[in-house]
């Protein structure tokens, strides 16, 4: 078995695609229309385009328990997932300048620095720098 796809639940796929590409810098990899209001839509890291894909999955829209779970995590401030960056403080400054809100500013946690931002699609996302 190999890790090829991980999913992130999103309320609006088109809005999520714009956010993950225009703001975060991911690149669209696969876009397959499925039904009138859902697509198999994945993005990948610009520096690792053959690496794992993130599936922007519209589950909160179609499956009530997924919506409940996403909301509960969001309200508790818990990240749905995390991405690694080379420098959390620089990435924080870059994303703040693009209007992105952070619930956790860059914070040292022993051997890592973390920060948490709102992806505007229903999730908190954590960025991590290994020290």
């Amino acid at each position, binding site marked *: 078995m190999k890790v090829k796809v991980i999913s992130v639940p999103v309320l609006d796929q088109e809005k999520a695609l714009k956010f993950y590409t225009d703001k975060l810098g991911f690149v669209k990899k696969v876009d397959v229309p499925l039904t009138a209001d859902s697509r198999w839509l994945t993005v990948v890291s610009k520096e690792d385009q*053959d690496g794992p894909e993130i599936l922007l999955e519209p589950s909160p829209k179609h499956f009530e328990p997924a919506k409940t779970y996403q909301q509960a995590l969001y*309200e*508790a*401030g*818990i*990240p749905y997932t995390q991405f690694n960056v080379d420098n959390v403080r620089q990435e924080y400054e870059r994303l703040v300048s693009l209007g992105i809100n952070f*619930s*956790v500013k860059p*914070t*040292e*946690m*022993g*051997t890592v620095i*973390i920060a*948490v931002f709102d992806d505007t699609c229903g999730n*908190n996302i954590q960025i991590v720098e*290994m*020290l």
Partner: protein
Amino acid sequence: MSHYQSEIIRIRNICYSNKAQIETVIGTRQYINNNFDRELNLNLLSRTRFTSKFHLLRLFKKYYGQTPKQYLTDKRIEKSKELLKNGRSVSETCFAVGFESQSSFCTLFKKRVGLTPTEFQKEQLSQSPIHFFFDTCSLNQTLKNESKSY
């Protein structure tokens, strides 16, 4: 304060209160990052941090979840993939990332990546834009030659 923010504070107090230990392991990891292409062993790493090798081994595993040797291997494999993608030969890559023999490099690479370094490089180059460019050039040349012969 959100639940997650209070958990960050709670976990930091439990797990990361010993600053001297954290400095030691971060320093060791950085030393490996800067010297992965040289011969490294626990004796050397412990000398750079003025600590005993068994203490360093325990600390590194406690904070990073793997031994220095496992981390070093990960680093070397990651770097070797970069070099192979950039077209460096297998033997050049092997020695550039600190392996002492090509056979141990190839065996470890196959075990970790699922392909031999040569297979990995072939797969990468067949997907690269450079390869596509050369393919397109050779196709154009073939088409030109064919049109001349008519």
